[in-house]
């Protein structure tokens, strides 16, 4: 009997985690931008697409090619 509340807690935790995993990565509306860090063009260093932790600015992301 004592195990039942524990099982309930485990169930709630797991369902909470699985609900968070539903977020799909991608570039379509409602999806989450992949957490990519890529080398910069024309200079040294890298760029983390989602921004660094604590950066609360919205992002305008333009993907293109020079051709």
């Amino acid at each position, binding site marked *: 009997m004592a195990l039942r509340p524990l099982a309930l807690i485990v169930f709630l935790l797991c369902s909470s985690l699985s609900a*968070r*995993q539903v*977020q799909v990565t*991608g*570039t*379509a*509306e*409602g*999806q*989450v*931008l*992949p*957490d*990519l*860090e*890529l*080398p*910069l*063009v*024309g200079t040294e260093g*890298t*760029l*983390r*697409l*989602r*921004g660094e*932790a604590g*950066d*609360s*600015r*919205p*992002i*305008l*992301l*333009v*993907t*293109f*090619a*020079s*051709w």
Partner: protein
Amino acid sequence: MWHAATRELVAAGRLRVIGVVQEQHRERAALWLKWQGIEWPVAWDPFNQLEVKLVPKVLAVQPGGLVLKDRLHPNRIEGEGGLLEVMGRMQGVTAELEQPAQFGPHLARARGAITPDDDPGEFVPAAMAILLMDRQGMDAGSCSRRRAAVRTLVDRALAPNASARDHFRAGVAQRLLLDLEGPSQRPGEQPNEGRFQGALNSWSRALSLDPGQYIWRRRIQQWGPRLDKPYPFYDWVPLARKELAARGLKPAVWKVLLSGAETAKGGYDLPVPVIQENPDPLARIPLDEKQRAILHWAVAPHTGFAGPNVRVAPGTSRVHLSLVPAEDVRIEPEGGPLGIWIDLPDGWRARSSWIDLQSVGEADYQNPRLDFELVASAPGPPGEAPPPVPRLTGFVLYPVCIGENGVCNLLRRNFDLDLRPAR
């Protein structure tokens, strides 16, 4: 237009504008950015890890990474769905998201010093990170690490459960290796196993599995036939260099020069052949039996093989040739003709059967390169397989001198190319 509209928002710290270029060569994108005066940070994504299918694509992303709008029109600033309205919706909203940071650690490791046992193993993200952060060193450690990374990506594409994306990335890796280290020169290597052909074959397999992926299609078309080009890819380069020079800016020297295919304009006109005589019809010029120079080649197919999304019928190819002399050998253009003779298959066209290499830039004499187009005279309808032209035969003539003051000879090397696109 929004580039100007966002400048104030960026300066006020209310917006972050970033770019991602979907190109094989980072230095070409760098020239374009410099020429266009683009100041916001732009990242290089040759492996298409962002997984976009076409460009340009403008996204509005909430802090935290949630994509609020995926098709912002570059010229729409005001009104519903315009930049300012979308911006307003994003202000002060931070999505609560997981921050898995899957790729960052691999990149951090790739940035570190090379260790003797540094090998990406089976880890594709680690392999891509190593190639992205490659310092382009040619020492044994750098070459070994780079080749291991390429091998990881190529092996991944050979796995039974390989995806279209795996094939594309294997192609990107092979082309990166070619640009850094040149064509592979393993003894006994068979035609179509070279790095460039390997890249083209991998991209062709990827496109066959996902014909709607236009980033991948363009990667083949970049080196492909003129009849398959939606536009010239890099015809803007001379103008950019000229204008930057006029502004007193000196563009960086490129390691990888543009091929003819990359500056060619698209079009429907077929080449009118110029009749020329075979310079060695009786094969009297001695064969290069001592491997004084190695001929490398690759055939870029018309992307019509992958599906009906083409404007002209498949069947044409762009053939890329490159001659790499041995270490103690010089190619001396004064020593005789330097060129290629092709035996055109029945019904096929090229601008000429004899292609003169004398006109290449002086700096290129030690690695003459050339690309030319082969056109099927009666191609099938779009979406159908190319006509069966199994092979292209011919020979290349080159005058070589051995050592500083050594004897010079005119030599001949025969070739036999497989023109069929990879499946």
